[in-house]
Each structure stands twice: as structure tokens, then as C-alpha cells.
């Protein structure tokens, strides 16, 4: 259990969604995860967390590409898809990590560059406890699900294209265009 080796059956792609389903638009991440998981896309593992922590770095072991999904108040509707680089958080609290900090934890722990990773930030508006998803967020979610599907589709296409010449376990070029 306590190793830095990927399990043999690790899916090459990971969608890691973050959010709390009971807090209004914070449910965007978990809801997107549910909808993508229902599609049963090959080569993709879908995982949901309340919030990211350092041990999520180990979930990246053996992946060829990773998509972090979270609600956001700082992007324009409906979403922003951006490539991530490892970066540190400066915080006074253990209560959350950013996706970039998870990549940094991976680097710190494993001693290697993390897999190519992207962030799908979905615009949210209201985050109160017990509130449902807002109408604006629901519209953003529909478009974001399509964006996630396209991301997975492109990643799988690249995986297939490289399968003949690419060495297993090394990073791939997902070939996504920044939005």
C-alpha cells in the first residue's frame, strides 16, 4: 500500500473532480464527474474529492494525462480549460490544496515531473450550504461536460496514435488547445 508504484491496472487518464454536493454551485465538480462516469469512457478513471490534499499526488502515479475539475469564481462562464504547472500554495491552513500544488506534491514525493495535467474550471455563482445548483451553473455544467468529453476524446486519440511508438508509462502530448 505504502509504495510509490502505480497499480498495474491504473487507467491512463484520470478525471479528478473537486467539490461539495451540498453547497450550491460547489457541486459542479461532482456533478460533472457523475455525468462523465456514466459514459463509461475507456481508459478513464473518474474520482471525486471534497477538496484536494497532498495524498492526491499518489493518484497521479502511472497516469498519462490528468484533468482536474472544480467550480470557480474567477473564470468567465461557462468554463476555462488551462494547462497546469506545478506550483506551491502559501497558506496558513491545511484545509485545501490547489491542483497545481498537488502536482508540486507529486514532484516532491516521487521526484519526477507529474503527468501532463489540465484544469477545467467551471464558473459558479452561489455556494451556500443546502442550496441547489443555480440555473447559470447548470448551463455552464452542460457545456463543461462537453468540454470534458472532448478532452478525454482527444487524449484517447493521442494515446492510440502513440501506442505503437510510445513507451508505456511516460507522459504523452495530449495536444489540447488552451481555451
Amino acid at each position, binding site marked *: *500500500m*505504502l509504495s*510509490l508504484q502505480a497499480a498495474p491496472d491504473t487507467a491512463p487518464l484520470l478525471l479528478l473532480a*473537486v*467539490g*461539495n*454536493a*451540498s*453547497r450550491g*454551485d*460547489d457541486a459542479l465538480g461532482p456533478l460533472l464527474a457523475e455525468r462523465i462516469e456514466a459514459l463509461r469512457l475507456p481508459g478513464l478513471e473518474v474520482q*471525486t*474529492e*471534497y*477538496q*484536494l*490534499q*497532498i*495524498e492526491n*499526488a*499518489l493518484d497521479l502515479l502511472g497516469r498519462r494525462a490528468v484533468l482536474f475539475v*472544480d*467550480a*470557480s*469564481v*474567477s*473564470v468567465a462562464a461557462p468554463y476555462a480549460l488551462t494547462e497546469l504547472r506545478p*506550483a*506551491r*500554495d*502559501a*497558506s*496558513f*491552513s*491545511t*484545509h*485545501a*490544496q*490547489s491542483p*497545481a*500544488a498537488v502536482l*508540486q*506534491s507529486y514532484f*516532491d*514525493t516521487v521526484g519526477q515531473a507529474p503527468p501532463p495535467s489540465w*484544469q477545467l*474550471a467551471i464558473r*459558479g455563482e452561489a*455556494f*451556500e*450550504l*443546502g442550496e441547489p445548483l443555480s440555473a447559470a451553473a447548470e448551463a455552464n455544467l452542460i457545456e463543461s461536460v462537453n468540454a470534458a468529453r472532448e478532452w478525454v476524446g482527444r487524449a484517447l486519440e493521442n494515446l492510440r496514435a502513440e501506442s505503437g511508438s510510445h513507451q508505456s508509462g511516460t507522459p504523452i502530448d495530449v495536444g489540447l488547445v488552451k481555451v
Partner: protein
Amino acid sequence: MTSDLETAPHPETLRRVAIEPLSRVEGHGKVTLLLDADDRVQQVRLHIVEFRGFEKFIQGRPYWEVPVMVQRLCGICPVSHHLAASKALDQIVGAKITPTAEKIRRLMHYGQILQSHALHFFHLASPDLLFGFDTEIARRNIVGVAAEYPEVARQGVLLRKYGQEVIRHTAGKRIHGTGSVPGGVNKSLSAAERAELLADIYRVIGWARGAVDLVRRLHEAQPELYEVFGSFRSNLLSLVGPSGEMDLYDGKLRARDADRALLFDQFGTNRYWEAIVEETKPWSYMKFPYLRALGPEAGWYKVGPLARVQNCDQIPTPFAEAARREFLDTGHGQPIHATLAYHWARMVELLFAAESIKELLHDDDIEGHDLVARGERAERGVGVLEAPRGTLIHHYRINEDDQIVRANLIVSTTHNNQAMNEAIRQVARRYLDGRKLTEGLLNRIEVAIRAFDPCLSCATHALGKMPLAVELVDAGGVTVDRLVRDGC
């Protein structure tokens, strides 16, 4: 014992400095400093927004949903809420839970303690402690730790992982666990799950012992810092077991004064409101609890690791007890009130959690099948345990239709509210008073807050948060300088 820096006589004439994470919903933490024209500190306040909306959220829901629902209150220690709610609801279903149920819950709880304490020390606190408070931000972080102490960073992540696996096997899932239910648990461990956890536990104990040793060496290297920084006298409160031993899952309330003299002992948690009163203050959203017998001025207290290791008479596992005695010896017979001592005490508890997990894994009851008990129904239940940051109280009342009609939660950060304020006032008085503010000086305020790692009701975690803004505002209310750190 209340500090004279709580309220300045003429705040309108003073310069205001706010240290403020700019999150967009609940969970804000902010420090405001009022300085006079000579940079003398006149007022220091920590503002934390408490849980809000929970009672409305849960009202009218059937009680059996509560242990799962409350996990959505907090993303960092959902297991603590899961178990505290379950303990309260045990009383409502009239259950004396079975040995298997209690041991599975204990296993889950010590898994939570282990992973939370590991995260706190290895990830949040160790950069400050290893490199000092004035080190530039780029080095005062886990990258610096990894570069100079590579094993520390790796062990921190793997200890977290182990704690999460304990939780997954006992709660059913890594998050949104359903393992604990009113009256017991809905699963025990399989032989395979038990073997998997046993395979790594001795390595975990070894790492935990190493963590205690590391924090001890840090203290010994700079005793003048560790014994003074943020030190303030206060009462101590925690649960203890029937023999006065440390027990983080169950027990009765014990309080000591600042000299460690007993104030009360074996006080039943079902009557906690007879011992603890929650006071409100106009400048803070969060309540200020105090011991009823001593009143608001003298009755506030510390909870959490530093209180627990000094409140108990012994720790019932050998390595942790030896570590506790070594820790207490540094006080030379006097109680230890230094804020940085929280970290050492926390690592003693990390070791206790690891040893407790080992003992439970060797107990055949954890594979038992007698999981749930029932008894005479009641309308009220109180569940109390020691969460990673301190005493956690869940109190529920239901109606004849089994719906929740009232809920009251007192979380560890609320218990520590006055203590955290005192810690930063001591730091401000000692290090900031009369000096030009620098990032290193302001970091000392954060170091004190980090020692407590307050719960920020942060189960909402969306992107776009800026964790910290420092604003310097002159006496006329004009912002003259502003520093923002990006990240989480």
C-alpha cells in the same frame, strides 16, 4: 486572563493592518492589527466565520441521515463529524454499541487523527519549523523540505495515504463514508483488509517515532524560541478515559487550570452545557466558550493536542507514553503553554494514533459480525470526541417523527477561539510592537495560527480563492499597501 490587546481605547485614530484570506463564502479567516503612529500595537483580533446554516440545512431530515450529511460540513475532518454524530444518535436509538462496532469506529477515528496530524506537521508546519520564520517564502514550503529533508516530505504523503486507507476500509469509502450508523457500524474489516493494513503498520509507527524525534530536536535546537513564542497561560480542556488516560474517541470532560491543577474531572458529556458556556462578542462571528465555574474573563481554555497531552495522566500505548513524558520534562515541572509546543504534542498523538491502530488491528473483534445495537428510544443525544484539533460536540434533538428539530455543534476551533486570539496577541506584542512590518514579522502571526490550524468551515473549495491579502490602512482609512498571495 483576557489580554489587554483585545480592544483599543480609540481605534478610530489607529492604523489598521488586515491579514485576510479572500475566499468567497464561509471559511474566512482574518487578522486585524491596529497600530498607532509609532507602530505600537494597540489591538489584535482574529476573525473566523463559524459554521452557518447547518441547523436549517439539517432541520426536518430523518436522524439516520445525519452521520453522512454532517461530513459535508468539513472537508478536512469529515470522519470526526461522522463519528460525533453517530455517538449522539447512539443515544437516540438507545444503543450500547457492540465491541466490534466500537473498535471499528476507534480504528476509523485513529486513522483520521493519523492522517490529519501528518498533514499538519509534514505539510503545513514543517517548513516554518525547519527553516525558520524569516526564510523567504520560496524556501519556506514543502519544496524546501523535500530538498533538504526528502524523507520528511515522502513520509508525510505516505502517512496521509495510510490514514486514508484505514478510513476507506472502515467507513466503506474514502470520502462520503457510511460505515458508522446510529447504534453501530454497517461493516467490519475483512481478513484481507486487516492483513493489508497490518502489512504497513510497523513502518507507520517507525515514521511516527521519527516525527516525534524530529520535532524534539527542533525544540532542543532553539529552546529560547520554542518555549517563548506565542506562550500564554490558560486552562486546559479535553476528554479523558475513566482512569484519566488519553482517549480521543470517548470519555468524560476534564479541565485543569493554567498550573495544571484539576478544576473538574469525569464530568459527563451529556451535561456539557453545565460546564461550558458560549459567549458572543460584537466584533466576531465566532462564539467564545468558557468554563462556567470561572466566568468569561478567567474561564477560557485551550483544547487540542497541547491540552490533551497535559490533561491526561498517561497515554495507554508505550512509545507515545514515553514520548509524552519526555515532552512534559521540558516544562521542568511546570505546565507548557508555548504555542509551538502544539506541534510536539501533535506528534506524540500521531504516535499514539499509530500504536492504537496497531493494537486494534491485532484484535479479532474487528472482524466480528455483531454490528448494530438498539435500545430504548430517546429524543436527545450528545456525542463528544476529540477531533484532531480538539474537543468536538454534536447535540441533536428529534421529534416523534424521527426528524431533527435542533442541532448544536461546538467545534474545536470555537473552543480555541480565545486561545488563538491570545497567541497572536503575544506574538504581536513580542515581535511586531514598535517595528516596521515586514513579511517575516507578519509570517510570525501566521505561524501562530498554523499551530492551531483552525477549522474554517471550508468544505466548499472552489478555484479562484486568494489565500492571503495583507492590507495596510492608514488612520484615514486609505489603503497604502497591499500584498496578495495566490494559491490555495
